[in-house]
């Protein structure tokens, strides 16, 4: 456990330190601009962005895109013991064991994944960043206290912690979001703190201090905005983790108690019973989870490279 903690800490700190380097040929707006320019030329970034955008559009326009009502048990009469109707007219991916259209359920399921992913990531990022600012801005005992707490969180494997919290808070969506958010907190806290410490040692922070500017202003106007780029990258990557964790938790039965609501993890779970004769019911939602998580990861990784001064041309 301690080795794993050490490894995770090192990874986060390396990220934070890299963000502390100010590129020699300017930063700020030009940095964002040139990062964007490089993103557009990077095929990996484009693939990631396309996946993410398609996912967002599907989630936003689910009612328009879905061919049927995801709750309607249209072909229930054709479902037999040991056989479930496959693809046919009006049901491009077939139906599940309750006779509901799989494609429509996948499309509606994207909304659930997106909502849980975004809300829990935002929640985790906000709390984590607050802790990071506390540690990075004040240093001293505040830093020690916050970082001890964060290290404890970090040393518990994410999914294990999410399951424990979910069990503790009861079976509902909000518990699920909070559970996932808690697993995101330590990464954001440590990342922002490290990146703020690097920025606090920067020349412009010293120059601003030499002008007699108040410490709170130095922290919030100068140090903080310059420390955010690794946090943005992490946010993108965290969305992928959150979507996977959300699916995993509802697969384990810790998600929404309303099991009729379409959700990828829950679909995967219920497909277990019919895996032997209709594995597609498990494959489709699994593919969705993998592709969406991959999309956010690709985008996040190429964003990191684009914002990294070392990769600048």
């Amino acid at each position, binding site marked *: 456990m301690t080795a794993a903690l050490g490894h995770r800490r090192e990874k986060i700190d390396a990220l934070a330190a890299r963000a502390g380097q*100010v590129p*020699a*040929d*300017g*930063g*700020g*707006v*030009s*940095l964002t601009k040139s990062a964007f320019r490089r993103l557009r030329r990077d095929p990996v970034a484009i693939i990631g962005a396309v996946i993410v955008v398609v996912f967002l559009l599907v989630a936003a326009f689910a009612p328009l895109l879905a061919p049927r009502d995801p709750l309607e048990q249209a072909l229930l009469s054709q479902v037999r013991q040991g056989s479930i109707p496959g693809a046919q007219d009006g049901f491009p991916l077939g139906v599940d064991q309750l006779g509901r259209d799989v494609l429509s359920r996948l499309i509606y399921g994207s909304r659930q994944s997106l909502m849980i992913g975004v809300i829990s990531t935002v929640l985790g990022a906000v709390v984590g960043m607050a802790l990071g600012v506390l540690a990075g801005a004040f240093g001293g005992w505040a830093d020690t206290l916050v970082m001890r707490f964060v290290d404890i969180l970090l040393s518990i494997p994410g999914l294990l912690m999410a399951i424990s919290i979910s069990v503790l808070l009861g079976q509902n969506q909000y518990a699920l979001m909070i559970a996932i958010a808690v697993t995101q907190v330590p990464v954001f806290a440590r990342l922002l703190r490290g990146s703020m410490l690097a920025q606090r040692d*920067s*020349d*412009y922070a*010293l*120059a*601003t*201090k*030499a*002008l*007699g*500017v*108040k410490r709170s*202003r130095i922290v919030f*106007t*100068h140090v903080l*905005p*310059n420390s955010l780029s690794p946090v943005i990258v992490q946010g993108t990557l965290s969305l992928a983790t959150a979507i996977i964790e959300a699916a995993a938790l509802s697969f384990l039965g810790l998600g929404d108690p309303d099991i009729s609501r379409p959700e990828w993890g829950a679909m995967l779970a219920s497909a277990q019973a019919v895996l032997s004769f209709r594995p597609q019911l498990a494959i489709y939602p699994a593919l969705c989870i993998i592709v969406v998580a991959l999309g956010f990861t690709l985008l996040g990784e190429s964003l990191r490279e684009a914002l990294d001064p070392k990769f600048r041309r």
Partner: protein
Amino acid sequence: MSTAFSAGIRTALAGQAPVLEVEELSVRFTRRGEAGTQAVDGVSFSVAPGETIGLVGESGCGKSVTSLAVMGLLPGRGVQVGGSVRLDGQELVGAGDRTLRKLRGADMAMVFQDPLSSLNPTVTIGVQVTEVLRQHRGMNGKEATEEAADLLDRVGIPDPRRRLGEYPHQLSGGMRQRALIAMSLACSPRLLIADEPTTALDVTIQAQILELLRELVQGSGTALVMITHDLGVVAGLCDRVHVMYAGKIIETAERRDLFARPRHPYTGGLLASVPRLDTPRGTALTPIRGSARDAIPWAQGCAFAPRCDSGQDDCLTEVAGTTVPLEDDGPGRELRCRHPLATAPVAGSPTTSGADR
């Protein structure tokens, strides 16, 4: 400590109380479990209103640390600061954070070496200039913007109103340094420390920036401490020069005296290693032997002894019994050397920088 000025132009200033008095300033960086490094070792100097002094020396001799110690900008942990720094009679060593913050930017200011990294890349020039005005002069909104544009105009930035809305990377190197000078002079400080303000700029811009500093300082009676390793800067700007080596001042003199008659072999070496126009073409430059890393601790004798051509046995403490003291050496001069140069190896002043005139 001799503070008597020899030349006529200084007599007007001689009667005035100094703006900055540094006495026996020492800075020691300590690391847990290590002996630590003595970056500044008993440095004393003072600056009168309107006077410009130079702190000159090789890289690593403690110039920047001296200036940071004066400004109270050294980190709180791992540093021991000793001696005394008085700004208009007020003691700064050991002063509280709040006291120092009120003085910084208002009564004492500093210009750094690299204008690009000294500006926040994510914030406009306008925000960075007005924040000084807000902090120390209680200005707000339109009033602060007007004053900021006025300041930029005064340091020679064309079209100041447009520049206020621009980011640091949109300005040229010279303009960035001008903007930083504008910020540091926004409250007409009594003391300005410029730590190699032209090193990161190209030669023509260097001359302009030095000229600007000279004008601004002369007009306002601000005391200027010019930190540099460029003797051209010293020749163009400084009234008095303090030459530093390994954390100590080794020679102090009026600018003209120093160039005409360097006494310390290190100063002589510095002057001889600068290209000049008045020597015949093809004359080889003579660099100082070795590097700053060859310095020995002052406790063992003269730190420069291992590199010195006129060094003798009694430069070392084991032989002489004491380390080399800083002693009076004629009017307005001080010297830390047992075997100084007798005659001037060079005459006049070097001409490397456009500021030299």
